[in-house]
């Protein structure tokens, strides 16, 4: 049998939930609608109801979101917002596929940002621009990865629950970033606690063809390209390589992974490092492409926003892209709409949380109807606890 025919037969790389009896009942399309679209719709509807309850016209609000996110070259801002969100999403996918709850994204993000903001603005004077930028990307990735080492080792060697350790590292990281920004990286020419700003021309170049009208920066920066490439690379890694399968086995059950002869400790650490690295890269796109400096009190907290998207996309690195675009639109447009309506921009956060809740609901419905499949890598992973594994 030819390779392509065999691949066609085995279609997807073995994904959790693939080829279940229930999916045959509902069909791939039906399952997609139920799991990946319905929760969103429900959240939007609920959001509309809440808006209406506090005397805000929901139709107008959502219209504003659209215009704030797309019209008048705002779509460029949205696309630029996609870059860090997508990289964080992909970073989470790597971790979640391995069954690792890396909730330290925000700490990794801010630390990486602080370091390259502080270091890079000094280096730009001494190095050619392109080299400087490439180097800084590496540095950001390294810092992000480094900030996962402690939780990674604690989990690999001592089986310490990574939810708590990564959360602690986040809080520590956020404060450490502030210390760095106010301390060694402080811009000496101003009293505002922030790093020295990059020279305008030293930022990431724009994608040819895009042209910003009203902003300081030159069009959609290439960070977006980096993000998309990373998503494709991770998709390939997870779905088509032996490493990806190993991660998937680990995600299904630590016990099974050990039984199959996988080096569980090494896998855990590598998955963590990879995840942290991608989050670091996200910081790089934001600092080097959009902001050019880092303020001490800046914390966009992208991390938790992205979590529901990752699940909606069923941990698929390419499938998550449309969701990220949607979220980027919603957050950029949401700022605008909130301003118009006199609301806090936190409203978008509410929508995100509601989406996750509704996803849990559809999960329950699907389970009741025995439709098979699950958002999580291997529903049997939960049994690990009883068997004493990580």
């Amino acid at each position, binding site marked *: 049998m030819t390779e392509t025919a065999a691949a066609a037969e085995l279609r997807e790389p073995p994904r959790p939930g693939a080829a279940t009896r229930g999916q045959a009942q509902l069909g791939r399309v039906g399952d997609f609608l139920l799991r990946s679209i319905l929760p969103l719709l429900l959240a939007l509807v609920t959001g509309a109801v809440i808006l209406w309850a506090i005397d805000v016209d929901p139709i107008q609000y959502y219209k504003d979101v659209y215009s704030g996110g797309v019209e008048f070259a705002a779509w460029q801002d949205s696309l630029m917002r996609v870059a860090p969100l997508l990289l964080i999403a992909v970073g989470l996918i790597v971790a979640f596929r391995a069954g690792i709850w890396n909730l330290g994204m925000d700490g990794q993000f801010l630390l990486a940002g602080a370091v390259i903001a502080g270091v890079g603005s000094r280096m730009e004077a001494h190095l050619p621009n392109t080299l400087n930028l490439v180097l800084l990307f590496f540095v950001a990735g390294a810092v992000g990865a480094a900030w996962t080492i402690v939780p990674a080792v604690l989990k690999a060697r001592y089986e310490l629950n990574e939810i708590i350790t990564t959360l602690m590292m986040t809080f520590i990281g956020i404060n450490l970033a502030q210390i760095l920004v106010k301390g060694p990286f402080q811009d000496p020419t101003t009293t505002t606690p922030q790093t020295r700003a990059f020279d305008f021309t030293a930022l990431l170049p724009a994608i040819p063809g895009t042209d910003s009208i009203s902003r300081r920066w030159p069009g959609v920066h290439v960070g977006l390209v980096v993000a998309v490439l990373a998503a494709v690379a991770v998709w390939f890694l997870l779905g*088509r390589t032996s490493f990806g399968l190993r991660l998937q086995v680990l995600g299904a059950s630590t016990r*099974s992974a050990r*039984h199959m002869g996988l080096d569980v400790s090494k896998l855990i650490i590598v998955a963590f490092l990879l995840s942290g690295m991608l989050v670091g890269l996200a910081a790089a796109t934001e600092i080097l492409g959009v902001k050019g400096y880092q303020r001490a009190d800046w914390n966009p907290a992208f991390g938790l926003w992205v979590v529901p998207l990752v699940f909606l996309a069923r941990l698929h690195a390419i499938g998550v892209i449309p969701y990220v675009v949607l979220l980027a639109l919603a957050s950029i447009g949401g700022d605008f709409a909130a301003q118009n309506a006199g609301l806090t921009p936190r409203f978008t956060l509410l929508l995100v949380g509601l989406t996750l809740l509704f996803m849990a609901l559809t999960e329950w419905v699907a389970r009741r109807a025995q439709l098979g499949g699950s958002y999580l890598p291997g529903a049997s992973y939960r049994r690990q606890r009883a068997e004493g594994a990580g």
Partner: protein
Amino acid sequence: MTTGSPLTPATGGSEQPAVELVRITKEFPGVLANDRISLELRRGEVHCLLGENGAGKSTLMNILSGMVRPDAGQVKLDGRVVEIVSPKHAIGLGIGMVYQHTSLVPQLTVLENLMLGEAEGIRLNAGRARERLRDLGGSLGLDVDPMTTTGTLALGQQQQLEIIKALWRGSKVLILDEPTSMLTPAGVAELEQIVARLKAQGLAVVFITHKLHEAISMGDRVAILSQGRLVGAIEPEELRTATHDELQERIIALMFGGQQAPAAEVVELTDEVEWHAPRRPSDAEPALELVGVTVEPGPGEIGARDVSLEVLKSEIMGIAGVDGNGQRELAEVIAGQRSPASGDIRLFGHSITRLRVAQREKLGLRYVTDDRLHEGTISSLSVAMNIVLKQIGKPPYWERGRIRYAAILAKARELIARFDIRTPGPMTRVGALSGGNIQKVVLARELSFDPKVVVYSKPTYGLDVKTTRSVRQTIREQAQAGVTSIVISTDLDELLDLCDRIAVLSRGSITGVVENGPNAQQRIGELMIGGKAA
């Protein structure tokens, strides 16, 4: 002290039966577990439910104990029709069940476990409970320390505690589900005495078993189930008067409807085993050696203490012992999933103690785990992927890190045919297969790619007769081909059937190794006790 022949009913079953099951029917997806079964349980009588694995005995009793609702049929208690909606309801009606897997909380003390489920006010009444324990324990001839942590009790004692618990709640009907599977021969004798006392107290006792000799020796009345139907019954009169062999023949005849019974299934039910000469050549080298291996126990485990064992090439070595004596720890330390605290493990003379699982795999060491669902396979992956799961990254299934589907599918098809795995296709999720076929997937994976030494842990546990037979046959065939096998099992009959030699594991130590033969069973029983109290 004896209480007379266990075959004489204490109070006779002349009055109304305590429990009547009338045409009970229960269907699960794909299988008719109970097909219009009718049964009567009488006070002061031991009623045995006999049948092979999967015959429907447990389902029937789960209906009586409230875990499962029947699709059709009635349950009558003392002549009244009742609908048992939950275990709580069943307990309230006086029906108690002692499960195969204990329903005690290991972290609580004996007294706390007994008080669990009582609802007498807010505060725990420990004093009164202590007194009651003394009384009830005494009536059964047992002495249990109320403050012991339940998890530290031996399995036999835990079972006794469960029986006490059933009496505690005022059970009038007591169901024992395969109670001897966890016990040493000495423990079985103790159980017989306890059952006799329960009878004397006027309980209706149901004894579920798949062993013919147990049914004959323990029961006042025997009901025979096969494939969901009640195929026959032996009345007390017959049990009292006929000989063991006559009864055996009669039961086999009832089970197989008068046709010639397949030999293997007869072996399964009876205790007839054929002795065979050891198949290893007399000058065989040791294939696997454990030298002074000690394993640190984890929570709830016993670990292994200074275990030394030598397994010769091509032989089938059994490891006998009641569950929870260190079998899992031993298997995992051999496979490489655990490191020993001290000692050495040698494969064909070379030390492998420092080698990891994957490296031992490469040298030909295989491990068929007893936990097929959560360790041996990944339920969400397909049959094909599960089969090559220990070959991740290796050619021809992976080349330079990339997956090669054609090779994987081809291999999967080959193994599905060879091991007779019943599956809709190679891409079916393993989780959708039946237990027997999942076991075959595990075997297909472990026994391919050139195995040399295989550790089997409870290989036929929970499987139907046909699959059990084929698995045992596979083990024999492998041995013929020169593969060294270590079979860890709690089923003594299985070990006597398969193995050349049998080592006995008790409290984490090997208490002795016995050559298979006519006296083996007795000597194994002695070795089981000789490390601890039953």
